[in-house]
């Protein structure tokens, strides 16, 4: 299957790189919610996309998730 983010071959909807990046993204969400008291998934994605520390693969997945 072609990765929904980059078009490279992968086992599922995402290639290996973006699949791992998505896991990281999902794992960090509860920490952000706790840190700010509350935060919607959409706001979280926006914040992560804007953050300079975010790695490019994580950012690409976040953009794809936001736009889907």
């Amino acid at each position, binding site marked *: 299957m072609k990765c929904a983010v980059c078009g*490279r071959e992968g086992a599922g909807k995402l290639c*290996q*790189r973006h699949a*791992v*990046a998505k896991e*990281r*993204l999902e*794992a*960090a969400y509860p*920490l*952000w919610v*706790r*840190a*700010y*008291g509350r935060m919607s998934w959409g706001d979280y994605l926006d914040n*992560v996309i804007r*953050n300079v*520390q*975010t*790695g*490019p*693969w*994580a950012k690409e997945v976040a953009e794809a998730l936001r736009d889907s």
Partner: protein
Amino acid sequence: MTDRAPQSPQVWGDPAVSGGYTLVVCEKPDAAKRVADALSGGRSAASQVEGTTVFSFAKDGEEFVVCSAQGHVYGVSDPAEERTVYPVFDVEWYPLNLVEEESASAGRRIAAIRKLAAGAARFVNACDFDVEGETIGFNLLRYACGGKEKGALRARFSTLTEEDLRRSFGSLEPQAADGLARAGRARHVIDFLWGINLSRALSQSPLGLGHRFRTVSVGRVQGPTLGFLAKREREIREFVPTPYWKVTGVFEKDGREFSAWYAEEKVRTKAQAEEVRAACRGGTAVVVAVQRSQVQVSPPPPFSLGDLQKEAYRALRIPPSRTLQIAEGLYLAALISYPRTSSQKLPPSLDLRRILGGLGRVRAYSDAVEEILKSGSRTVQGARSDPAHPAIHPTGERPQRPLDGQAASLLDLVVRRFLAGFGPPARRELVDVSMDVGGHRFKALGSRTTFPGWMDYYGRYAGRRDQEPPPVAEGERAGVVSVTVEEKFEQRPPRYNQGSLLEKMESEGIGTKATRADMISTLLSRGYASGDSLTVTDLGFAVVEAMEKYAPSVVSTELTRHVEEMLEGVEEGAGGEADVVRETVRTAAEQLAELFANEGEVGRVIDAAIAGEASKAGALGGCPVCKSGTLRIVRSRTTKKRFVGCSNYPSGCRASAPLPQRGTLRPAAKPCEKCSWPVVYVSGGRRPWKLCVNPDCPGRSKP
């Protein structure tokens, strides 16, 4: 493994009858000159043999001829003519000029040594005493001198100073155990087999190769090293930051302000951080504890090569491979000892007083030397040792020619490290202040050097950093001026630089001290990584991913380390090199079988990455038609032929030109003088030729 290198005929008979000379074989021309000067007292005669300089002189009624190689003059290669076939498991040793075009001079060196060997009665191996030097010496004695690797004598020295050379030639040893040479030769064979098979496997895809501008290859040590970089790069690219808050307070005591930070350095919720700020604002701090502690800081150990490379990168930003190059030059100039050493020790047999005496004549070091000699202190020793050479140290000699900037800096670093080793431990005072503001704890630190000791000798490399402690004593009060809350994010891990990657290779037992820096340079020159903070390229990732999937041993640390351990066993005489080669070849064969089976997939992945890079790298120059696009080499999806197209094709520029379908293309630096279209060099076939890509170029004689 067989020997294809011709051995010279034994034309000389019983040495007692023929009365031949002693032939001294050195590794480098500069070393040969130093040996000849030292032994002859500067009265040797230079002459040309086969276009190389040799030195001859008589000493105590004995004739000497000193000749030299130029590093390795023999190398391993694949005896098969067909350059595209793999796997290759059969290798032979050849004169290097037959293997590599750029090694033409090796042929002359070999010819000279063969000629000289014919008249020699006695052979002395004076190559560097380590794995590579033993390998070079062994090959010269076996192939160029006609099977003399057993009966030769060995000159062992760690510096090229007159004293050391004379002493070493005064006590020549029989050519000792050949473990080093056997391990060195095995390492060359293994690395060759590894490299040739993988690069052929990787460079062959069923999709045609015309648009490739480079050879894809992965060396045995390079694989795991690239693996380290890729692992770190993945952590960076997948990284999702998480927030925390840093609370800092500014306090005031008797009109002096100082800052201290909230004891919980990372506050995990915004609410808690705000709470602390609200509670502390306008309050008063009580100093609950001021702890002072004295620490002793011992001088750093003498330099091993790895230590020197890391320190030169840290303090002088000289890349490790360059440091080795410069250090080699300083060694050949007899200014420092042999740099390829793992040792952090300076053995008692070294005449340290003489070295200090020499350094004392340099103004910048004279005060330090005087103190050291007066105190009679001994040098610090590190933990690691090396059977062949002591730690890198200065010889105390003055440069005969002025050194260039980097060489002078590196020599200064080596000298100061040597001097620092004699210095007493430095003493530092640390101050740890703890304050309480309404139940919230704040901390501040101070540090100062109370006695510099060795740091004075190490000078600017010591990196002293003092920080004024807050001006408060236990039980005192300080007013809270302000409290700030900063939103912060966890940082992604740092990329490796050349210094930290070298350290990683050392700690993982990958590569040898002599080769690690070169491995890093090769990763850069192959385009697998780039930049000062080493960033893995798309091509680098494609190679790692293909290997992880189909040939995991190639990028694993275990196999490389295992081979390294087996080779160390051979060096120490504990194992046979044939076993090591056989075992490595067997693993390589298994991995290659897997690669073979998935050749199409591997090729596609790497092709895609190369095409991606080529779309950047394949640019030829500005488009003279639309004036805004870039002309580059592209490949037709339908005909698979390559041609020149403009990057503005999607927006309408139709500039294009045919290209020769055979040969490798390399863009020239300057565009065509006649029509300003790009020019390429075409190589492969007869000889490289230059081609303006414009089919209508007025200067074009034939299509």
